[in-house]
């Protein structure tokens, strides 16, 4: 195995396309565990952290462009980001311990393609897009289109994510993310839920996106759940519909972390709780 830390995007693209089994490295909190356990045996590891733009958070078109190797801790410490996208920042800061948050990156959490990745439902709810670069050039994708199954992405050979874009927000918009774990920390989500919504001046919901993690082979954008909120004042009736839509969208498995029945049950509970927090945040804005 070889380790390289290129300083230009072109060099990184070339390296990743050069050998059979090449793996990009950002925070390494998933990759190193997989290496140690012999789950992956790459010939080449390409450290992306020295590439321009990979570790910065920049304001762009009223939104934020976040380098793929930016860590959860850096997201939390950014002065503006957490005010605009508190749910995304919360989600990224639920990944592992303090130690992990100092290393684990947003891009890595996405491209590791765990169905239970905490930041992904929050990013999907936020309507985030990713910029992908590779031998064929650059392309943009919605976050929900990146993972295709457990540990699998649509990235082609030599491609990697360079940044994630969080769009500008209309007034009275807010997001939130909650996950369910048996302990208070250090667990993988049994269910995760991201909600992002916008209210009009009367308090009616005009836009809503709801995403669920750990209830299918990848994180899901649940359009029906969002639709249940749109047009409502986020009252009990709307929440009833939200809960039903969230549960209906689940197609989980039984595994060591939770049962099907439990996950479906909890998905509804979390959808309501997360939407309630997002609504309170949106209402709290002037």
């Amino acid at each position, binding site marked *: 195995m070889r380790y390289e830390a290129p300083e230009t995007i072109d060099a990184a693209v070339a390296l990743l396309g050069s050998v059979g089994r090449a793996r990009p490295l950002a925070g390494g909190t998933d990759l190193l565990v997989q290496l140690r356990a012999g789950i992956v045996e790459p010939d080449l590891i390409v450290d992306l952290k020295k590439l321009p733009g990979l570790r910065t958070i920049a304001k762009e078109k009223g939104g934020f462009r976040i380098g793929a190797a930016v860590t959860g801790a850096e997201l939390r410490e950014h002065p503006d980001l957490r005010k605009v996208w508190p749910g995304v920042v919360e989600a990224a800061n639920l990944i592992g311990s303090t130690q992990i948050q100092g290393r684990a990156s947003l891009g890595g959490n996405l491209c590791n393609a765990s169905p239970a990745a905490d930041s992904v439902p929050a990013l999907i709810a936020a309507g985030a897009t990713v910029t992908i670069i590779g031998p064929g050039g650059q392309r943009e994708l919605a976050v929900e289109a990146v993972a295709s199954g457990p540990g699998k992405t649509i990235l082609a050979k030599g491609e990697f994510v360079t940044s994630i874009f969080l769009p500008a927000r209309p007034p009275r918009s807010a997001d939130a993310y909650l996950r369910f774990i048996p302990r*208070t920390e250090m*667990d*993988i989500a049994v269910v995760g839920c991201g909600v992002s919504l916008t209210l009009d001046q009367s308090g009616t919901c005009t836009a809503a996106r709801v995403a669920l993690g750990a209830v299918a082979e990848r994180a899901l954008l649940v359009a029906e759940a969002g639709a249940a909120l749109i047009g409502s004042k986020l009252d009990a009736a709307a929440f009833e519909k939200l809960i039903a839509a969230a549960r209906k969208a689940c197609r989980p498995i039984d595994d*060591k972390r939770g049962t099907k029945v439990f996950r479906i049950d*909890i998905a509804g509970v979390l959808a309501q709780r997360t939407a309630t927090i997002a609504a309170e945040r949106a209402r709290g804005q002037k």
Partner: protein
Amino acid sequence: MNDIPLAGTAPKAELKWVGTRGPRPDGLDKVTGRARYGADFRLPGMLVGRVLRSPHAHARIRGIDISKAAALPGVKAIVTRDDFRDMPSEFVPAGEMMVNYRDIVRNVMAREKALYEGHPVAAVAATSASIAREALSLIKVDYEVLPHVIDAAEAMRADAPLLDETMITAGVDPAPTKPSNVAKRMEFSTGDLKAGFAQADFVIERSFATKPVHQGYLEPHACLASVNEAGQAELWCTTQGHFVVRTHCAKLLDMEMSQIRVIATEIGGGFGGKTVVYLEPLALALSSKSKRPVKMVMTREEVFLSTGPTSGAHMKVKIGVRKDGKITAAEAELIYEAGAFQGSPVGPGCMCAFAPYEIENARVIGYDVISNRPKVAAYRAPGAPISEYAVECVIDELAQKLGLDPVEFRLKNGAKAGTRALYGPKFGPIGLVATLEAAKNHPHYSAPLGPNQGRGVASGFWFNIGGESCASLHINEDGSVTLMIGTPDIGGSRASMALMAAETLGIDVAHVRTLIADTDSIGYTFLTGGSRATFATGMATVDAAKAAIRQLCARAAKIWEISEDAVVWEDGHAKPAGQNAATFPPMSLAELAGKAGKTGGPISGHAEINAQGAGPSFGTHIVDVEVDKETGRVDIKRYTVIQDAGKAVHPGYVEGQFQGGAAQGVGWALNEEYVYGADGKLQNAGFLDYRMPVTSDLPMIDTVIVEIPNPAHPFGVRGVGETPIVPPMAAIANAISRAIGTRLCELPMSPPKVLKAMQAHKANGG
């Protein structure tokens, strides 16, 4: 000995060191990273040893081909079953334990069959970790995969796959004619069960199940072995008992004990799990073959796959009471999983089950059952937390049924001095009632509860043990003292020994340094476990100090040219007594030490004892929980541990034992379990999914140390390390039941199970 006023007999108020919270001799090294644990040792020319483990839960091993691995450059030795001699199936003494070496040799290295996923099949020593890993992949094992059985209840069925085709259940008359997975049946009884239940106004009978849980020590098993051409071996290892390691290794490798020197490294947690051998015989065998030092360290996955948790169990408990709250009869059936080889702690489970109560008519029947899991190892009060969990849940339910406060109900029936335990003897002075009274009066017990919260209490018992211990105490020329003991220090016992030595000698504890001696430097000392170290090695320490005092007095007598009988030892000084009193100024320990050479030579005291009279320890825990009614998640809001320590030698470390036991109990109660797939493979062999409590899962854990002295110990010490893990599971179960209005009878009480119980309760109109 009567001429020496003993510190231990002095009233409590006069103790100067015992009962204080001084620094620990090993503390500085542990906060600076200097302390060396099992994996921190290295030697020149050292090889890396790795183990090939069975991927199957149950498979016959038809053949092992090591030829390709042996030919790999850098591979220096390989061992398989062929390198270990077989042993007959019989229980023989190993130190103070009775062990079956037929089973131990098979657990160390699979023989006819691999009996669990992770069972060692071969081991390799190579010049690097990567070569060792490659060598393992080149060993070809021909397995015939067999049907497996994981759960004890299933293993007891007539059609279950048999692990050992020769196993005939012991303890049954007449002996069964067919083999089974039931190794043993046992029974404890007293009084007339039928008559007892006939007197009862209410009878509650419940079934319970618990899962195996791992001790979860953070330090993986590790050792470094070096064997020379003459067969002399040195072995550094992380263990609770280096003498026990020596005993086992000598037996398994057919070596004389004098040829094996075992050095106990600092130990990163054990809780009972480091009382057996896994890597040590393999490392010695590999070193013996290669004549190079071999270091072996388990990965965390290996720790979970192949080292012993404690048993999972299926239990039935039935208790009858009169309307006035008096228990009339109690009965239990306990089925404990032993893992792949017999020897679950069902015996102590039976004996402890009803120990906290005075019950005239009782019977407990236990079964020791094998299945395709790693062989269980001791885990804090082995056996007791399981059976007492079940009993304490039924006790709580009976209190509810009678409309009695659960502490009052326990006080009505609680064991006290003179109560006959189910297993026979009458208790001497014990502290159960004192812990219950303390619980009743503790502010926690009467604090208001919030919504969705419940409060539970439970009591617990553990025997505590004594046994063989040695201590050598050297008076150095400058008056400082070096104390050598043979029990590895797992949680601060060096500090406790220093305090007891200082108290007995009458000198400042700062001048006493305690060290753990290797197996060649002190006499046989049984392991640190059973809550025996502070008790038994403490007694040896006091005896060794007294032996030194006798010499010190004799030296003073020689200097003063008076009779030895006319010298007493007080406050660290020899003083002339009787008709010579005040004739000479007292001589301090340091003065006498300085003159030791001229008055007869160095002064040392030593003691080699088999300590008897261990004092049982009782505890009572109070816990508040809050249940999330929509998800079933349980939060521990407040926790109080009350326990009889006899005498807390170092209260800080006694509290630490209470708190640590409670925290492990919280994990056992709420989330820890082994999750097996249909293929018999463990799915959560790592900290991530085994889910031990983390810092944010717990509140502060309040402690109350009750001190009812143990008359057999010079300072009144009872062991404290094990009882704290006995009450938590029932206390939490009782708290949850009071929060949600229905009872769970299965551990762990993880969110899906709690949610399901609440939903069922609601569906039934609850």
